[in-house]
């Protein structure tokens, strides 16, 4: 749950009081075009950007844990994993080394063998290219690797930042389908920032539209989102 979060870089304010909620087991889309604060919000949740104000709280079995002021490694330790925008792989390490680094979290190290087997099964292409350098993979393969690497940390909550960026439409569909598949097999809660409305709403239960660092609209279903005028204006070109 995120409440009244404000954040920015230096003198530039990016988020102006963003509030939103993601419930367990949901897939929530965070929709917005470039430069509206989607990535910044995800980075705030991960502890990579420190919010200036507001709360970010993880509620689990009745326990409330504030995420503000925690380091990224603590937040990863709580079971939150980020698939960063632009994938951010380790280009000069092999596919397998990338995956192992996904399991840096202490709790994940014990499950490393099982997770690795799962990832190589779920992403056969990564199995084939196990010893290849991550930088030599194609864009779609890299996105799959970024997803698999996040799963290696045995997360309960998966944050996905613009999985569609730089991919051909057919690959986007495949990546999106993979996210749904992972969500179901691992009982994940997913928050996905995306510009591609049509793709995101394929798997989202509901969503938020963020404009200029503020939540402009909360859609309780994908239909409500599709009917909203902002979506019509920005995405559907109506």
């Amino acid at each position: 749950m995120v409440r009244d979060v404000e954040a920015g870089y230096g003198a530039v304010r990016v988020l102006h009081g963003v509030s939103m909620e993601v419930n367990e087991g949901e897939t929530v889309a965070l929709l917005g075009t470039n430069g509206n604060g989607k990535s910044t919000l995800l980075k705030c949740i991960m502890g990579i950007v420190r919010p200036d104000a507001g709360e970010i709280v993880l509620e689990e079995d009745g326990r409330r844990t504030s995420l503000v002021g925690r380091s990224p490694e603590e937040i990863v330790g709580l079971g939150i994993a980020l698939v960063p925008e632009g994938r951010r792989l380790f280009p000069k390490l092999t596919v397998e080394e990338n995956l192992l680094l996904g399991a840096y979290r202490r709790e994940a190290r014990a499950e490393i063998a099982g997770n690795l087997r799962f990832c190589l099964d779920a992403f056969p292409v990564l199995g084939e290219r196990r010893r290849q350098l991550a930088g030599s993979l194609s864009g779609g393969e890299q996105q799959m690797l970024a997803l698999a690497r996040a799963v290696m940390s045995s997360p309960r909550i998966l944050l996905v930042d613009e999985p569609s960026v730089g991919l051909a439409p057919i690959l986007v569909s495949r990546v999106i389908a993979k996210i749904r598949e992972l969500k179901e097999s691992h009982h994940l809660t997913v928050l996905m920032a995306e510009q591609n409305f049509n793709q995101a709403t394929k798997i989202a239960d509901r969503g938020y539209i963020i404009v200029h660092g503020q939540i402009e609209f909360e859609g309780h279903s994908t239909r409500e989102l599709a009917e909203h005028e902002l979506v019509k204006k920005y995405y559907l070109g109506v």
Partner: protein
Amino acid sequence: MSGRVLLAVAVALVLAAVALTRVLENQYYYFATYVILQYVVLATAWNILGGYTGYVNFGSAAFFATGAYTAAVLIKAVAAPFPVLLVAGGLVAGLLGLGIGYLTLRLRGVFFAIATLALAVVLQTLVVNWGYVGGSRGIYTLRPARVPFFDNYVEFLFVVMVVLALGALATARWIERSWIGRGLVAIRDNEEAAECMGVPTLRLKLVATTVSGALMGVAGAPFPYYLTYMEPTSAFNLDYAINSLAMPMIGGTTTWVGPLVGAVLLGAAQQVATVTISSALNLLIVGLVVVAFVILAPEGIVGLFRRWRARARA
């Protein structure tokens, strides 16, 4: 190679070094090998930060001299026994590494390198103006008249350096295979991504600066006894900074073997040049070899060897 085999090799090397002191009389060989071994320690230490983590340290001389001057002060003040010198030299240089890490690790790439170079200059200026250790005139250190088990002090120092070099290599190998090492490599490859993955980047970088600094300090601790007369220009010599960076680059920065290979080859070449031509040639040799490697074999000798083996297998 498995750890047990390597351990056996290490023990055998120490025994061989001790045995050698029983046979070989010519002191020159001990002096020369000492210098090469000292570079094995320095290059290995540099590589933990520069090779694994990708932070280029240009101030190796500062850490080395910190160890050396810590030892000199302890000898002068309390006539501290030899093991204390090693521990204290490592401790003080390690703390320096930690402190410098805190101050400079926000800097990346060339800016970090400049900051470490500046550290060496600042420390040297401090020592030059520090009367207790002789300032720019330098400080004399008398070796203990006798050392148990060895015929003379140089042979003892030689064996000590063998042990230190093996210790440094073992440390580097251990780091390389641990989660620390994996995290350091992740930082080198993509620091932001490492952070996203929950790699504690700041903590790991501080571990790297501390361990690297401490090893360099330990390498410097026997230096006053080795030279018996030490002045700031020799302790802070640019040679240390350049060599400890060039040797891993020549050997290969991704494994603990690289700095060892680089230090032995380059160190030996310098010793030969010193005897046959002139020591003034040393830096020129380093410069030429580094340029050649950066252009022709950026992954060093270890990288060349790996590629050759991969091709032989294919």
